[in-house]
């Protein structure tokens, strides 16, 4: 573990005080003690360069400012620190797309980027796209077309598809575009190729393509 910053130790301390006397307090107290020991070590080696940093970004329209361990990925900050668990962890190595979020208008894998590298960025997760009462059109289309079975890949699929449609509009070609210069038509082949960074373990692909095609207005 990383040495904690003094401000966080303050928070830890008060949490321990709250928890003491409740069931499981023994365990909590032991952990809190370990933290205190680390805090002391930290002060003794204050000359060490910091392995945590401050970062601020706009997430789903709200500003967040936090101190993070340099090692923490954007994905882990979203899920573990900010408790936005809509974004999923599948492989943690850029291979499955479950962690897809939209940063500065572009889809990326949140597992392969450090939180500290997002100073000033505007980030949208599935929670920021729509709500149960006010679904994003793609969320509604996934429901209508049964674009999932277990649903684990779905937030990533939807974030990916939202940004993918913007890429299509902006004229970004794909591996299957026969003409590099012309704007690609919205065909199933184009949708499949452009969505190939999102793996669905349940194999709901044909329904996913149906949902995306409906919103993109393409031909089967």
């Amino acid at each position, binding site marked *: 573990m990383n040495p904690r910053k003094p401000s966080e130790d303050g928070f830890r301390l008060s949490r321990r005080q709250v928890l003491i006397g409740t069931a499981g307090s023994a365990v909590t107290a032991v952990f809190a003690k370990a933290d205190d020991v680390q805090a002391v070590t930290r002060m003794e080696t204050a000359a060490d360069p910091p392995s945590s940093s401050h970062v601020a970004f706009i997430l789903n329209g709200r500003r967040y400012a936090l101190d993070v361990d*340099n090692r923490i990925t954007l994905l882990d900050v979203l899920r573990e620190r900010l408790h936005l668990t809509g974004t999923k962890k599948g492989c943690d190595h850029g291979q499955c797309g479950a962690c897809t979020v939209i940063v500065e208008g572009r889809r990326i*894998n949140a597992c*392969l980027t450090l939180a*500290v*590298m997002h100073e000033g960025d505007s980030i949208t997760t599935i929670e920021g796209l729509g709500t149960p009462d006010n679904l994003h059109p793609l969320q509604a289309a996934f429901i209508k077309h049964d674009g999932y079975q277990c649903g684990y890949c779905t937030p990533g699929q939807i974030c990916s598809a939202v940004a993918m449609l913007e890429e299509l509009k902006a004229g970004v070609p794909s591996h299957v575009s026969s003409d590099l210069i012309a704007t690609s038509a919205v065909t199933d082949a184009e949708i499949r190729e452009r969505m190939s960074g999102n793996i669905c373990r349940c194999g709901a692909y044909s329904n996913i393509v149906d949902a995306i095609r409906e919103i993109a207005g393409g031909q089967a």
Partner: protein
Amino acid sequence: MKSFTYERVTSAQKAVNAAASTPGARFIAGGTNLLDLMKLEIETPQHLIDVNGLEFDKITMTEDGGLRIGALVRNTDLAAAPQVRRDYAVLSRALLAGASGQLRNKATTAGNLLQRTRCAYFYDTNQPCNKRRPGAGCAAIGGASRQHAIVGGSNACIASHPSDMAVAMRALGAMVETLHSNGQVRTIPLNDLYRAPGDTPHIENTLDTAELITAVILPKPVGGKHIYYKVRDRASYAFALVSVAAIVQPDQTGQVALGGVAYKPWRSEEAEVYLPDGANAITMHLLADAHPTAQNAFKIKLAERAIGLALSNASS
């Protein structure tokens, strides 16, 4: 992941100065390769220099009509740039054949060139690997080597370079521009960026630790038909077994580079003389020094057929 310090830099000179003065420092751009390897503790930098704030994100014309591609231009933007689609189509095609939409949005020009091998033993820290731990041995030689290099390897390492983009850039005659902390600006032919594995497969390129890639320069367009043909185990989102970047003129002369067969994009200007004689002729010369394993000897035939297909597509 091992702990590290982190800084964002606002100028190239600050970036190289930091690299020169901080032990264990590394540049980080898109992070899609470096972070992947840091999670596995195959890469253990002590300090990360985030270069994303530098203004190397532009594509401009050079004085002699070529293209200057900033080191931080994202793979998506390079593939979609109008000049590249029109005049360097082989490069757009190669980029679009690589990775996924999400990864291409992050991956940068310089990071793509310097991405490390996908050799499964390099990734598996329980296996001996000279590239990961010099002197440990090579599990791929005598192991599962279907994906590995067939030419340019050594008894210490037969890893192949995974980049698609670099293969197209090699066919196009790209140069790599760098800045050193001592102020020196170098322009290196792409072919000279990569070091043969020899006895030191952990040393992969000819850059100094305090040297930053600032741009890739392409010569002025040469016209012709541009083909990138990638053979892989699934239709999308997979690394190449063999790939071909070809630029073919109406008289059948041109440039051909192979991916997936060596520690770098494999091209030979002498072999290209045989291009008008067809796929077999050029492949025999291009891969004359091949030393495949029993498991990847098929790549020679595969390369010949891939070149053949590229040539027939070029003439259709």
